[in-house]
């Protein structure tokens, strides 16, 4: 298996591999093998997996150790964009060492919008960790996922290990894949969305979101208000104003988006850990920490960031 081999060999480059496994037993064999190999070589392991797979990893990891961090995908990865900065934070504590990052991002419960973000996330992994001595394993359960979901798995990895243990490789331009994913249009918001032009007052933006979301979200409204404030602040700071904020809801969620004429130069922003000394870059990242989904789209026509909070 590719990852296990690179871990054992002390490979210095990034290896990013999709692992298509079949149920718990397949997970234990294919993913568990990578974790066992990493632990045998005393390498740091960060794994984010659904609750049904966490137990397997805990059994393999044994006693708690600062070199192993296991997290629940349904919590940390509820917004899939959070996992990358969490991984950066973890591996920063183990500098100069090869590490294993396991992230199972896609379960059958993911919405179409979330699936699209998983696709973006996989591309960001390639760009963000391009120079990192990291082995990234992305397990996908073929017993639970439909063909479309498995297409996501295979299209965004240069290396795919299938359930029968066969490895397939194909050419993969991560930068182009990320640019394409970030330019893919979002569904248009409904015509009756509450809409406000951003004209200098962040207070007005907050009031709009607060009044709209309070009856639908309860206490979580404050997170959406803060996240929307950060998006509007970015519009004022980086796009020279002229943005629009829209809020609406459906049966499952409250959605809020900010659009403006600016264009993001860094397509990984919001998903990576911000520089603590930097004056900017924390706002978008904050939205991924606070919201259930953050969709960022940017091209020459402008930038739209859409936030989703489950009701």
């Amino acid at each position, binding site marked *: 298996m590719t990852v296990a081999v690179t871990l054992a060999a002390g490979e210095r480059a990034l290896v990013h591999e999709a692992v298509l496994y079949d149920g718990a037993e397949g997970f234990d064999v294919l993913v568990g093998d990578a974790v066992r190999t990493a632990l045998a070589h005393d390498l740091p392991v960060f794994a984010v997996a659904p609750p049904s797979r966490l137990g397997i990893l805990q059994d393999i990891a044994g006693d708690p150790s600062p070199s192993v961090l296991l997290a629940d995908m349904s919590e940390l990865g509820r917004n899939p964009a959070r996992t990358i900065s969490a991984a950066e934070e973890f591996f920063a504590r183990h500098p100069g060492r090869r590490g294993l990052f396991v992230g199972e991002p896609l379960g059958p419960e993911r919405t179409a919008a979330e699936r699209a973000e998983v696709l973006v996330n996989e591309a960001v992994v390639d760009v963000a960790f391009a120079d990192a001595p990291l082995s990234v394993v992305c397990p996908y359960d073929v017993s639970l996922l439909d063909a479309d979901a498995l297409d996501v798995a295979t299209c965004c990895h240069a290396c795919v290990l299938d359930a029968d243990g066969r490895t397939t490789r194909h050419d993969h331009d991560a930068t182009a894949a990320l640019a394409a994913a970030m330019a893919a249009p979002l569904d248009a918001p409904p015509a009756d969305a509450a809409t406000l032009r951003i004209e200098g007052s962040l207070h007005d933006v907050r009031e709009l979101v607060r009044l709209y979301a309070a009856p639908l979200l309860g206490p979580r409204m404050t997170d959406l208000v*803060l996240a929307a404030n950060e998006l509007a602040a970015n519009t004022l700071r980086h796009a020279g104003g002229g943005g629009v904020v829209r809020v609406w809801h459906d049966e499952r969620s409250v959605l809020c988006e900010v659009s403006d004429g600016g264009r993001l130069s860094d397509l990984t922003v919001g998903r990576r850990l911000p520089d603590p000394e930097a004056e900017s870059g924390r706002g978008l990242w904050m939205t991924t920490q606070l919201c259930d989904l953050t969709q960022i789209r940017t091209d020459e026509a402008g930038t739209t960031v859409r936030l989703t909070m489950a009701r």
Partner: protein
Amino acid sequence: MQVAGLPDHDHSCFLGSSAPDADPAIVAAVRDSADRGFRAMLVVGEGAAAKRRADRWHALLRTAHAAVDVVGAQQGYDTREGLDPARQVAAWEERVAAAREAGRDGLFVVGDMEWTRQADVPTDLLLDYEARVSELHARAPITGICDYSFAPPRSRDASRAASVHPAVRGTRPAVARGSHFSVSRAGDRELRLAGELDGTGAAALGEALLPVIAWHRDVTLLVEEVEFADIAALRALARVGTELRGRGHRLVLRGPSAALRRAIVTCRWAGVLLPEVA
């Protein structure tokens, strides 16, 4: 170094025209210093108005049965060549040492700062001097009240001078006010923040907060009335907290709401702003 037993108002700025003895805290400071065996020193400015102020202070010092050394501003501050902050602070250190050699436990000073207006001392130089004095007060047994109660046109300077003192007596000046937030002096070493702190007011907030670094003390921000704070505002707080920590002091947030705490923790600024949860 914080000197054990010094009163909380060890470096105070006095503003306004009310009689000093109207402020019980000043009376307490005077009595406390006398009780501790501090040597008392009154630096008197020039002119009739300064004389009237000096008479009030002198009477107050005498109510504490303190023996008072009365000197003119020219002697007390060596005003002939303007204000040299480093030299002046060194002079205070020598006077503290002299008081201790004379068997006293420290020095209590009331200084009339009117002369800085008459000599047109640049504001930045004045703020630098007061910041150095705060630092001296944090490590040496000296308690002082700087009387900035003179009238405009230098009232803005007096207000700025107040911002670099850990404590303010008399009239507390407004610190900063935006369309949806305010910053005001609360108690000694305390500022009260209220309203909604966001990026549009972050520059004003930062400007209002930065002088507390010159207090050379732990600083408390009362934030019970903060209804909202965004990243730009939290960054301004974190910057002050980091600066204070670099000087061996702490920024304490008292009464943060659950939402504010969550925002701080999520931003990874708990280590600076909420060390108890970091």
